[in-house]
């Protein structure tokens, strides 16, 4: 997979300070691309990280996450991809 294609793929953004490490998103990610880290954030929770590849932009993680600002999903538009 070229870097070009990768940039145009969907991806999650995790805000590590807002994540409480509950793992709801991990068990709900159909691609298994979210993993729990081992480091603690400033508030004392371990937080989720993205493996960097394979996200389909299904938004499961966004919807199942209880924290308003912990995780976002970005999906580049198709048209751009075709340009």
């Amino acid at each position, binding site marked *: 997979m070229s870097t070009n294609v990768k940039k145009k793929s969907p991806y999650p953004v995790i805000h590590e*300070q807002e994540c409480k490490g509950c793992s709801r998103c*991990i068990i709900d990610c159909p691609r298994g691309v979210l993993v729990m880290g081992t480091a603690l954030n400033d508030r004392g929770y371990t937080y989720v990280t993205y493996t960097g590849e394979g996200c389909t932009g299904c*938004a*499961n993680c966004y*919807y*199942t996450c*209880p924290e308003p600002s912990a995780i*976002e999903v*970005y999906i580049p538009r198709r048209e751009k991809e075709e340009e």
Partner: protein
Amino acid sequence: MVQEIENMRVYKRPESMHEVFERKGGAAPTATHYCPGCGHGVLHKLIGEAVDELGIQDRCVLISPVGCAVFAYYYFDFGNVQVAHGRAPACATGISRARDDAIVISYQGDGDLASIGLNETLQAANRGEKIAVFFVNNTVYGMTGGQMAPTTLIGEKTITCINGRTAEQAGYPLHMCEIINTLKAPVFIERISLSDSRHIKQARKAVKKALEIQRDKKGYAFIEVLAACPNNLKQDAQGAADYINEKMAKEYPVKNFRDESENAISVTRPKSDMSVEKLNEIFNTSDGTSEAVIDKDYKELQIKIAGFGGQGVLSLGIMIAKSGSAAGRFTSWYPSYGPEQRGGTANCSVIVSGDKIGSPIAYNPDILVCLNKPSLEKFAKDVKEGGVILYDSTIGDVNLPKNVKAYSIPAVEIAIEGGTQKAANTAMLGVIMKLGITRLSEKDFEDGIESGFAGKQKLIDINKKILKMGADWAEKNLL
């Protein structure tokens, strides 16, 4: 919610939720106060998303409950009222009716809604209030540390049923959707689940529908939300999802119970007219009264009048109050009587003041008027030092406190002489007038009688006569 940002579709925090929770403050003002994995946060995001999508943020008022969601007002960027335990439906009713355009969201837990607040929940549903209720069923009292709730499953262990709930001891889990579905008024009833994203994506539609019904003022919407309390139920993420999917959903089927939103028409309520004119009309206070004016020189006067019901105790109070308002004073009249219409004891407090009245109760009267003995014995000790007691002569000898002026008045006698025993109260009024202890003028008293008997000329005439007889008696015997 989904936003379009540059050339991206982005799922992120709804615009109607704050980015920084200023009201929460503290060391983590961008995260909720909820435990990791708590269902409340998931539902908050769905509500925020629907509010954004419907463009109704400026009309929304959230009622936050007692329970873990007590601080819901930290998170939403719209109106909020935090209420006492279980009282959200009453408060929501008030707001919805007072502000017709408001979209009122009653957010409640299972302890709040199905236990302490069950009555109000059913009454509001039955009235078809124009509110959206989000009922978070997590089978436990979350905030207080995991006690059994009405929704706790049979066999489920909580700190107040450590071996599991039994029907023998605690009855059966309460099915709120099913109960509400027996009522006629609700427009929309659905049970949703927040166990996992598949269910959450289904749930989105119902949440939005409930708010859409509010946007269109169509009436009552009830959404029961199966949600996780992983903290009290000691579950990890998988455990919580399995519990909801396998155990809770068996007891509480996830489905729509009713959707009348297509056919429902906007709720309209009869208008309440609270204008001064209307109130004057209802209470017949427009006659002979003028607007009260502030007069700091006229110190508050507390008057208590007591006797048997039927002796004219309450109407004597009204006549004094009317005299007070005829004179442009602030006045209040506050009756207190037993369950009997007649025959029991009754009393009333009248306050006449040159300034706004705090309490309408005469705890320490300047003037006490008693038409029977029990009342005199009961209230004489409360009279202010230097105050005045007027009692009917038929009461006879009594022990009266020192430091008050007490007068025995033949009020019943005067009234009989004047033509009607019923007007003993008016004879008392004449004495009060003559003694000058209310600092109201004779004209004020006459105006008081006129407005007290509004339009009944015969009664006005005879009462004015007896008023004068009372006054004459006082002049001859007391002054």
